[in-house]
């Protein structure tokens, strides 16, 4: 199915920083960029920067960025010959590439068929096992019988997790440390599942502890060429949401990189993958890697890989979608230095990550050696509560981890966003944390090292340092502004209303 058609215009079925990222790639390729926007996004930066922008519906995603029919209609009306879905929204909906194809529009991403497999965890696991890709030990599918469950658990080794096929996001998961406990929990979980869904659909999986999340970036073209673009470690998470990503991982040496990279390529081939994707693995403290899933889209953290490989993943996506062959061999790729990404979310890390939305009257986006920012923020923009909380991705590159880390630390200090709370203070604490510095990461990193306590301590420390300056500002205000107010009423100009210079 190696089609070959030069793309001349792309509709970007997304918003925010990723829409802007894709617009920039379009410009470099000489391709017309077509943005879509909801009522909420009339003044969003992707509307301003695209060659064209079309209104798509009201603010709620279901009526705009998730409205497939409307988007495909718009693409046709605007003469777009391709659609880039970005991440989130429709990017992993297998019906979307199908609808695109029916309407003669190139979908920049995997085929519906590949998506269908990668989107179904159990089906995907079965395919991977067949392709000898190591997966998390456990049942091959749904288990209805407690004896079978015990068998699987004994083979995988305790502790194990009992997961409801209907659960999700941490719900419906039960831990069993022994066969006895398994039998008890199985009965309870079955009853619960039956009550809720009319069916007891459980599966058993080995409970991996102190795991690291390590993923491999993949690309595969329509001619069957596959490459992996090395790993990213994304172990610093909160409630299964990645906060910090980096490449290389401190625990992946060149030999491991090649070994797991080959497995990742095998995984891509097993599902006949197309375009850019990511094979996600868990790594246990013994150094075993377990495949968990393929993310069938461009990921939020793709710039980490761009910084260490020098590749432009979005331009590569377009080339593959046009039917081009990947021009580099696996051996051509070399990892250059280290890159770290922090997701600057509009959430208050001091208040249980409460969403923080509203106008941003001013902001200072950091720049300088080794710093890259992908963001939709600009002075005067609005952070909307209708969409997700990622406002910016701050990246730092260095010749080695420590250079990248220190640059990140400084860039976090330079990054100011007025009007909303962000996760920046959390990342400042992490960049200085000795455990982070020595690479002692795991998905429970934040709790294990009491990072939130440290963050609160850091905030107090900073407050102490700033106490005199704070008092000085209040004294200044009482001394100058009140007088200035009076003076200004009397004369039009005042000594205290100053311009840039002083005499």
């Amino acid at each position, binding site marked *: 199915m190696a089609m070959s058609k030069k793309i001349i215009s792309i509709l970007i079925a997304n918003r925010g920083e990723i829409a802007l990222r894709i617009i920039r790639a379009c410009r470099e390729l000489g391709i017309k960029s077509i943005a879509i926007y909801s009522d909420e996004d009339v003044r969003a930066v992707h509307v301003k920067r695209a060659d064209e922008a079309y209104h798509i519906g009201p603010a709620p995603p279901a009526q705009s960025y998730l409205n497939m029919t409307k988007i495909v209609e718009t693409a046709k009306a605007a003469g777009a010959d391709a659609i880039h879905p970005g991440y989130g929204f429709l990017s992993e909906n297998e019906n979307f590439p199908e609808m695109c194809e029916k309407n003669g529009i190139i979908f920049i991403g995997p085929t519906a068929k590949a998506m269908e497999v990668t989107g179904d965890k159990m089906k995907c696991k079965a395919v991977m096992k067949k392709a000898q890709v190591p997966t998390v030990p456990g049942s091959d599918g749904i288990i209805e019988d407690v004896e079978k469950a015990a068998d699987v658990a004994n083979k995988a080794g305790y502790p194990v997790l009992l997961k409801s096929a209907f659960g999700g996001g941490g719900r419906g998961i039960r831990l069993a440390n022994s066969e006895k406990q398994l039998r008890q929990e199985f009965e309870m979980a079955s009853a619960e599942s039956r009550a809720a869904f009319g069916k007891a659909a459980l599966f058993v999986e080995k409970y991996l502890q102190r795991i690291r999340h390590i993923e491999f970036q993949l690309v595969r073209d329509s001619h069957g060429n596959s490459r992996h673009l090395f790993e990213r470690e994304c172990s610093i998470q909160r409630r299964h949401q990645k906060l910090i990503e980096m490449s290389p991982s401190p625990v992946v040496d060149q030999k491991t990189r090649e070994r797991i990279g080959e497995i990742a390529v095998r995984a891509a081939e097993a599902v006949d993958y197309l375009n850019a994707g990511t094979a996600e693995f868990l790594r246990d403290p013994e150094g075993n890697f377990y495949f968990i899933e393929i993310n069938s889209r461009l990921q939020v953290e793709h710039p980490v890989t761009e910084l260490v490989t020098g590749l432009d993943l979005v331009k590569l996506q377009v080339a593959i979608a046009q039917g081009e062959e990947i021009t580099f061999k696996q051996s051509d790729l070399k990892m250059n230095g280290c890159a770290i990404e922090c997701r600057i979310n509009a959430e208050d890390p001091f208040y249980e990550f409460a969403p923080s939305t509203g106008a941003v009257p001013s902001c200072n986006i950091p720049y300088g050696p080794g710093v890259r920012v992908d963001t939709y923020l600009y002075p005067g923009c609005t952070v909307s509560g209708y969409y997700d909380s990622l406002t910016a991705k701050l990246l730092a590159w260095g010749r080695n981890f420590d250079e990248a880390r220190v640059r990140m630390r400084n860039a976090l200090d330079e990054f100011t966003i007025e009007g909303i709370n962000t996760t920046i203070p959390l990342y400042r604490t992490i960049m200085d944390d000795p455990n982070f510095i020595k690479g002692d990461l795991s998905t429970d990193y934040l709790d294990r090292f009491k990072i939130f306590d440290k963050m609160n301590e850091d905030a107090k420390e900073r407050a102490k340092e700033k106490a005199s300056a704070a*008092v*000085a500002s209040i004294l200044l205000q009482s001394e100058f502004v009140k007088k200035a107010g009076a003076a200004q009423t009397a004369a039009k100009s005042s000594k205290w209303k100053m311009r840039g210079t002083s005499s």
Partner: protein
Amino acid sequence: MEFKVGDIAQLLQGEVLRTTENNSVLVKIAGKEHTVRLLKAGTNEFEFILDNTFHHAKILQSGSAEVRLVIDGQPLTVKKHSKLTEVLEKASALGGAGGGDRNLISQIPGRVVNISAKTGTEVKKGDVIVVLESMKMQVAVKAHKDGNLKEIKVKQGASVARNDVLAVIE
């Protein structure tokens, strides 16, 4: 005047000794004299050099007793009083300054996706009263104290702003 810097509970004595030419002020903070050179003064924004270091201050809220400000990106609350020590002592003797507020306030802006409690019922501190949605996240707003849920001020689907009163507990 005396100032108490919130969170860190630090007490600082501060006063203006005199203003000099060149937009500078001589101040005394915690017994030490400093020259503050004012670079920019807006109504609620200041840039100045204190002890050879630049500072940027944004005053968010300025009352006669309390000032909320952001200094070099660090949010701070400062209580001010000419006899602050006395006041604080008195307040602590009374067992806390404010006293129990009836209003349950929303700390975030969002849309009401669920009303989880009933008007007229008894609620305990920590019970979920209302669930808000913002940025694809659901945030439970919990009772800030035990009491009778007198009134729920919002409706399902309504938008609330930060600091809006969601309910009244007595």
